[in-house]
């Protein structure tokens, strides 16, 4: 009631200002509606259809049939399994990142150059470095097998041409690519830990392991949490490196991820409806995993306060 009264007595100036306010609100709102809400709703509708891009979307609604089919789709589950296997790289990257960050968090010469070097892969084009690593992994002409042969005199493994090796190769690549980002985050986290905590611990006679276990690790937990969440979400969305290094999805489809499968379905085979359904399922999985993470964070994520 009060607000209504106020409005009636609004001055011309205030009215004009209110209009401008609406305009400013409209900008992000329209952007959100156009580029987020509309595509999401569209994908949801398309996921319940046999839409091909050429035929009519509304004339080919099939309800939940796409979803039912995905549940028994071997290729989808194989791609899902591979996607999850790739996530082995997440803890490896986190441990390595933390170790390197602790190494860099000292007064050592060349610290800035080292940090920059670790960060170069992060700012490099994913496609470019994927092409580069495809050559590093090359069976006959690659850097890795060149070194292997020089050392052992034997031919190295078929990094990208073997069902198991291709997964290991991609994990190595992803750890390398993501390491710099993790290092920078942990470095920032380490620098936020007040020095006096360590001094107090030293007076109490704590050794370095105890200091690490009781001070560093718990106080880095917010960073660990952030890295974990973003890596998990990113892990479910891996696509580019797979597409570049193994354009047909690897031997017997052994390197394909869910997004790779989705892309192949939608844009190679023209099954945009089915592809949308895969996308929706993926979104739901990511949502659930992230929700679980946020729920569980109280148990292990500590802050300085």
């Amino acid at each position, binding site marked *: 009631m009060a607000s209504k009264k106020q409005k009636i007595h609004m001055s011309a100036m205030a009215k004009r200002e209110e209009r401008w306010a609406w305009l400013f609100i409209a900008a992000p709102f329209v952007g959100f509606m*156009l580029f987020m809400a509309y595509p999401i709703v569209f994908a949801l509708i398309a996921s319940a259809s046999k839409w091909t891009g*050429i035929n009519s979307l509304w004339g080919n609604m099939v309800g939940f049939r796409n979803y039912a089919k995905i549940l028994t789709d071997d290729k989808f589950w194989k791609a899902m399994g591979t996607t999850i296997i790739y996530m082995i790289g997440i803890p490896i990257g986190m441990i390595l990142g933390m170790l390197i960050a602790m190494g860099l968090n000292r007064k050592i010469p060349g610290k800035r150059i080292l940090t920059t070097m670790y960060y170069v892969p992060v700012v490099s084009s994913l496609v470019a470095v994927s092409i580069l690593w495809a050559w590093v992994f*090359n*069976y006959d*002409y690659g850097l890795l097998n060149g070194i292997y042969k020089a050392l052992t005199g034997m031919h190295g493994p078929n990094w*990208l041409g073997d069902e198991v090796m291709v997964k290991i190769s991609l994990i190595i690549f992803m750890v390398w690519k993501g390491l710099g980002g993790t290092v920078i985050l942990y470095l920032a986290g380490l620098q936020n830990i007040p020095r006096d905590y360590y001094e107090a611990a030293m007076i109490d006679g704590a050794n370095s392991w105890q200091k690490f276990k009781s001070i560093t690790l718990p106080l880095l937990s917010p960073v660990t949490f952030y890295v974990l969440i973003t890596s998990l979400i990113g892990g479910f969305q891996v696509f580019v490196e797979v597409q570049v290094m193994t354009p047909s999805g690897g031997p017997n489809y052994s390197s394909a991820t869910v997004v790779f499968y989705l892309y192949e379905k939608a844009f190679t085979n023209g*099954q945009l409806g089915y592809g949308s359904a895969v996308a929706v399922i993926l979104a739901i999985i990511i949502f659930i995993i992230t929700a679980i993470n946020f729920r569980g964070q109280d148990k292990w994520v500590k802050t300085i306060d």
Partner: protein
Amino acid sequence: MRKKFLGIAMASIMGLSTLAGCATTTVEEAGEAEVDTQAAASEESGEAKETTEATEETADAAASTEDGSSSDSLTGNGDKTLHVFLYMQEHEKTIYEDLVKKFVDEHKDEIKEVVFEVTTQDEYNQKMIANMTANDMPDVFYVGPAAVRSYVDNGYILPLDDYVDADTIGSVWGTTQEIYRYDGTNVGKGSLYALPKDLSCFAFAYNKDLFDAAGLDYPDPNKPYTYDEFVEVCKKLTIDKDGDGEVDQWGVANADQWGMTPYLYSNGVKFLNEDMTKVNVANNEQLKEALTFYTDLTKNGLTPSVEQDTALGGYQRWLDGQVAFYACGTWDVAAFMDNATFPYNWDLCGWPVGPSGDGKSHTWMGSVGYCVSATSENPDLAAQLIAKLSTDEDGQREVSGITSGASIQLPNITDLAYGEFKDAVNSGKVPYASNVDVIFGYFDGNDNYAASLQETDYTYNAEWFTPFWSGVFNIKNGDITVEEYLQQVEPEMQEALDEAIELQNSATK
């Protein structure tokens, strides 16, 4: 009141973003987009759909410009406009753009503007889907033989019989007259829906220098090898040149996805039944025989091994002079003729012929055609333009290299191909493999040669064939026998084919 203002605000923002997107598009497109925006705004409550599409589309155009697509407009004094949307290589674009310019000059009084927009092949399909979703089709665009049915069923393209004269239609390769016809049930009959941009095929080539070094006679272009003869020749060409105990020159290299089917087709193999509803693989004796022959080439070491293949593909090995035979698409010829790319003498020959086929060497052909949008406001003019692009003699002389000396494709016009083009090849004016008759044999068919479109060109998508070619390396590796493989792969292929048929049937509005 507040609602109304919100509507205006939304509309203005949309308009702004539309205009922002227009900076890189032509005036013509910007005009269209603006009309849509106004329409949406005037509906007050903001039926955002149309506007969204328009905005998306223009944004799309802007984005693709960054990726190397480009559009140019050519103007006259008339009042008709045409929007042409194609994919092409950069050097092709120059030639075709000149043709469009000529066309505009010839129809100066009719034409106000022709927007000639060219993008890459990858971009093209996605942009076309966007156009279809937005119901905003260009006047002239591409249709492949595989898409004729769904484009016609969904009312996207016009029959050309009323617009293009019979002489023009009759001047191109028989195959291209056939594959763009559709009578509502079958492709290959009925009204004509497109004129060819090109016709191509996947022929076979051999490295003359390696034959000379081995002291062997060149393959006879009039009598392709039998399977057995081919194996014998390959054995003589598979050698350890530097004597380090490892083979470093092979008879042949094969890429399973594209280079396997010609061997199989040449043994009479068909993967699908007559009406393309059933996969015929598990109990297909011709296929068993041909696939055994094909995989044995690798098992017996006449091709690089599967591992070696993952390290360096057959194409690179051919360019490097490591293999004696390799597939040669008509689009590859220019590269192979270029000394910097391929510093060897070479020529064309036929794919080896299996014992259980019709005795002819078979391969697959490909084509893409120009069509006219059913929603075009100037269908007559659009049809005349595609006739120009497809069959203008000067244009064909230019793209085939008769006048330019650089052959991008073979002439669409048969008289020109057999006449001036062959003369130019023989006189050396066009750098081309001298056995060009092999290609013409595949195109037109004769006692030794025959060709058809791939079976995947007749189905909604190629997904049913993917499990087949992508697993063949397991046979080459000795992990599975041919027989087991065929038994194992058939259900998966059939399932994907059923899906494709269902999509095909759903493709009607």
